[in-house]
């Protein structure tokens, strides 16, 4: 959406203007961006709780810091007071020939300055340390939490959103802790302390100075209310920009090959402009708030000056007191501006905290068992006992009974949507069944500790995801304590050794971003070697061989035969060549097993597998 004022960078790309395609994103079920008032206050409470939890371990440090701050402010406040004393008593004394008071006042000022500076250093370092501790705790906590959330969460929430939670939202809090905390504490303290000093210095003048308070209070309330909404909106527009950005550069090949750049320019410009407007709204509030504080401050100053001057003329007030008073007044209103700055970062941090606390509230649907049954050296017998499962109302497996004896290799065959992947995921406990249970060696999976389960059951998916680092690093992901010899042995067993050695640095070759240096087939083979190194009792292969070229697939299949010999395996494969090495084939349709038997037997029969097999043989020619 482009406004007339959006300037040069708006929509200069070719094609129609962006708003003609406002629905380009399509429709999804999860657009819960707009919030009702009650939801909003619920979110506030939740994020405040999180902030409280984060700060609680540091209460002592925070109290100590407050003490330091108090001392520092007292030292700081001494300055104007001493100037007043100097003018009212030291100068007359000096005029009378006595330099003593002046010397004392000066020494006191230098001493106060030293104390102020030293304490300030202690405070800044201390609050910096607390802030960084809090951030580290939050980073750790969110990262660990996200890691243990179920796959269904990741599929629903999508990586872009999760990434922006862990990066930009955490950084918004960092900003608050960096700039805000110091500013707020100093400001609040100054305002309080100076308020007291003003009243003590001269009560009537102090009361005049405090006239501005009710106005300030109303102003702050208005600002707080309206800026909450404005800043929440900015978090959303920022997130939308991040999604657009990461998707564009994640799929840059497709973007360039399909000349998507122009259209993307428009879409990005529109999102960017949305973001600008959201920020404009939020900053506009600040632009009103801060000058209003200044205005109130200046009005009060004039009132104090007038009132004070009259009283000095009446002889009720010393000139020095009036001067100190005016100096303090300036120091009273300046920190109020800091409060606006603090509120600024508080609001954006708060919006970020709302999102973070939401993620932290997500519960794992496959929780760790409270009293796990130890499973060491599993034999690998898998039993599905009356298993029913579905996603969001749609039933995928209506009721499955299946026993896979230890050591058996089972191939799952069937059209897309037949429930093969679901069955595989249940076996690896990426989900828990809605009814019935899945058992490994007689122990329900939900009673096995995650560490034991992952040692016993490993799933290899079709993605072949590689992490930053060398090829060897990626293989050793299967068993981090493996030595180089074991890594190479695993690669050899799986038939990956040859191509790995042919890479520029062999096993030490950096795989680059997402393994971009390797072909999809090579990535899968590395993923395979990884699983081999992990040496589980049960291996689940979900379309793991789909992108392999024939020689690679052949190599892997040779390896598979030895690899699968002494372990239970569940293989989902579209290529029937993979199926041929299975002991048993299960043909699935609409979540049920419709054929079950050794491959040779099924080929001979007249069922669906026989049809599939014929089609496959035809395709080989």
């Amino acid at each position, binding site marked *: 959406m482009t406004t007339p004022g959006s300037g040069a960078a708006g929509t200069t790309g070719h094609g129609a203007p962006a708003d003609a395609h406002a629905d380009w994103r399509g429709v999804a079920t999860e657009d819960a961006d707009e919030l009702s008032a009650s939801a909003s206050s619920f979110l506030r409470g939740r994020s405040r709780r999180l902030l409280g939890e984060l700060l609680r371990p540091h209460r002592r440090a925070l109290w100590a810091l407050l003490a330091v701050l108090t001392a520092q402010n007292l030292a700081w406040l001494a300055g104007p007071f001493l100037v007043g004393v100097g003018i009212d008593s030291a100068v007359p004394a000096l005029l009378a020939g006595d330099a003593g008071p002046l010397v004392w006042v000066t020494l006191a000022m230098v001493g106060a300055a030293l104390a102020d500076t030293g304490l300030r250093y202690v405070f800044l370092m201390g609050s910096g340390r607390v802030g960084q501790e809090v951030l580290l705790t939050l980073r750790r906590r969110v990262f660990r939490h996200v890691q243990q959330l179920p796959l269904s969460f990741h599929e629903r929430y999508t990586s872009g959103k999760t990434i922006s939670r862990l990066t930009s939202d955490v950084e918004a809090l960092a900003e608050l802790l960096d700039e805000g905390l110091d500013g707020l504490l100093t400001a609040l303290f100054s305002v309080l302390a100076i308020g007291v000093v003003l009243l003590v210095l001269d009560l009537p003048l102090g009361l005049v100075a405090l006239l501005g308070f009710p106005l300030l209070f109303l102003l702050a309330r208005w600002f707080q209310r309206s800026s909450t909404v404005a800043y929440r909106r900015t978090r959303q527009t920022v997130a939308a920009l991040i999604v657009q950005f*990461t998707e564009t550069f994640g799929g840059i090949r497709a973007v360039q090959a399909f000349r998507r750049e122009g259209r993307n320019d428009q879409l990005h410009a529109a999102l960017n*402009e949305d973001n600008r407007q959201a920020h404009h709204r939020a900053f506009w509030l600040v632009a009103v708030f801060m000058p209003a504080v200044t205005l109130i401050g200046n009005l009060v100053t004039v009132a104090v000056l007038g009132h004070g001057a009259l009283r000095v003329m009446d002889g009720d007030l010393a000139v020095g007191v009036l001067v100190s008073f005016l100096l303090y007044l300036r120091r009273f209103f300046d920190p109020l501006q800091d409060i606006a700055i603090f509120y600024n970062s508080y609001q954006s941090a708060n919006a970020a905290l709302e999102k973070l606390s939401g993620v932290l509230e997500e519960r794992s649907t496959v929780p760790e068992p409270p009293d796990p049954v130890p499973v060491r050296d599993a034999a690998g017998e898998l039993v599905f006992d009356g298993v029913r499962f579905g996603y969001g109302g749609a039933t995928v497996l209506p009721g499955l009974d299946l026993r896979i004896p230890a050591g058996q290799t089972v191939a799952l065959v069937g059209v897309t949507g037949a429930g093969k992947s679901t069955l595989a995921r249940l076996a690896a406990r*990426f989900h828990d069944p809605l009814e019935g249970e899945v058992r490994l060696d007689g122990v329900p999976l939900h009673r096995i500790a995650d560490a034991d389960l992952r040692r016993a059951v490993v799933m290899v*998916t079709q993605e072949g995801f590689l992490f930053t680092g060398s090829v060897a690093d990626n293989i050793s992901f299967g068993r981090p304590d493996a030595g180089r010899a074991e890594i190479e042995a695993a690669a050899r067993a799986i038939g990956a050794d040859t191509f790995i050695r042919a890479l520029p640095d062999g096993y030490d070759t950096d795989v680059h971003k997402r393994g971009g240096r390797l072909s999809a087939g090579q990535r899968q083979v590395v993923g395979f070697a990884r699983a081999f190194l992990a040496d589980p009792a049960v291996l689940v292969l979900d379309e793991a061989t789909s992108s392999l070229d024939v020689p690679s697939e052949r190599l892997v299949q040779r390896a598979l035969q030895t690899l699968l010999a002494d372990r239970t395996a569940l293989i989902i494969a579209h290529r029937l060549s993979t199926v041929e090495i299975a002991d048993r084939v299960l043909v699935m349709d609409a979540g049920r097993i419709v054929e079950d038997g050794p491959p040779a037997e099924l080929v001979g029969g007249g069922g669906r597998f026989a049809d599939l097999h014929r089609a496959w043989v035809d395709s080989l020619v």
Partner: protein
Amino acid sequence: MTETAAPPGRVRGRLSALARLWPFARPYRGLLLLTFLGALLATLAQLVVPLVTEAVVDGPIADGDRAGLVPLLALALVFGLAEAALFFLRRWAMNVSCLQIERDLRDTLYRRLQRLPVAFHDGWSSGQLLSRATSDVTTVRRFVGFGAVFLVVNLVTCVVVSAMLVLAHWPLGVAVLATSLPLVLVGSRWEARYNEQSRRVQDEQGDLATDVEEAVQGVRVVRSLGRSGLVFGRYDRKAVRLRELELGKVRTLALIWCLFEFHPQVTLAVILVGGSLAVGSGALTVGGLVGFVALFTVLLWPILSLGFLLAQAQETASACDRIGELLDAPLTVTDRPGAVPRPVGTPARLRFEHVGFRFPGAGSPVLTDVDLEVAPGETVALVGATGSGKTTMTSLVARLQDVTGGRVTLDGHDVRDLPLAQLRSVVATAFEDATLFSMSVRENVALGRPDATEEEVAEALRVAQAEFAHELPWGLDTRIGEQGLSLSGGQRQRLALARAVLGRPSVLVLDDPLSALDVHTEALVERALREVLAATTALVVAHRASTVLLADRVALLEHGRITAVGRHPDLLAEVPVYRELLASQSELAGAGEGGRG
């Protein structure tokens, strides 16, 4: 993540780093000037209050003249109002200008990045790109609207107030100025250190973001191997290092703050002593001293803020450097000067002529002297072992990368002589990894041809056997990809295929387009695809016989060279390497037994 670090020993003025912002600020210079004037005048308006105070003390108070108080108070009131009004004006002008500058800068960066070659993107983690487009751009915005303005305003204030101080009482004024010298010297040293530290922090944040990305996107692998602990440990080490770097930054900043806090207080003491002596000797009135002190307090904030503003300037300079690294990256794949659209037929003739390709900085070439001709309407399959250069070869046609030797031609025109817009509209590519974006099915399929009609989209979906799209909850308007409905690998691949065949391109480049399909679907897709292939020139990377059968001829690629071209049955019979690549295990076993028998 090493390529992101700045080249060591960069000798470049910080000012020149900031200077590259000027083109972005220029369109808004009027507003920026307004921001600047607002800030300057508001600061000057502040100066009036101390002067009025002095006048009140020396005038009406000394004389007991109550009536004389009124005009002075009215003056203070007017300037107090003016200060607030100017303050508002400044914030308003700043918001309007800076947010637009931020937007423009981010748009420019995004545009530039989209046009940088694939080779560039292979070398940069997207976390690093993201942190530059978000936090670095925001740093710039903050500086332009606030830091830069106040750096100038505060310096001006310092000069003006200093002048006023010298005029008010020169010995005292000079003394105040003399105390400021060491401040500047020590301050600049610490600020240089701060700058270095903040750059390291920014880099570390980028690396941390990369870790996050990998952990989230590779969650299936991490989960199925139970390696959450390992991944967490990796992240944690970086997070801890980031904290250490941040603390270093905090320490330097604390020193700077303290310096700037200490200085004015000591100066105030100097003023008091000097001022008292001056009053004692009759060179200054009490009112004069009061005014002097009040004037000096106006200096406090400008001096106090200088350290912070300079730090911000440094931070912005390094943000500019980081953004500059992206903006300065060479656009190696661009329109040649004088590239004009040339007639390219549908189908077109595609030729590789002595094509060589080598990654920048790599030792051995990926492709060597590749010659291949695909006649109009012909389909050629590209077969080769993993790593033989097939995918590289396909990327040369649409110029996702440029050849490093020889040339690729379409109907006799070097692809580099065609405008990219034309080239990429006549060549359509489907990649090995089916990339879908978080938008509607329709938008995804019509990616390269937003003007495609409903019928054309439906036709493309039919050819790719992707008609399941009509059955999605909102039909073709259903959002898919990252932020929408998740699809299976086969479904994704079919949509990517539909995208490629939409609008019947002159040349179709398919990189193993059917790998994720089950046998049944594959057969259906092949049948429909044949119609399309009959009318277009196609280069198809094939990993299995079924895909090869779509082609009229097959080219065998070995170690970056084409070693055989011919019909599938002929190659199968005559070329052992080819047989090795395409025959299934059972067939090979059969052949082996046959050989022995």
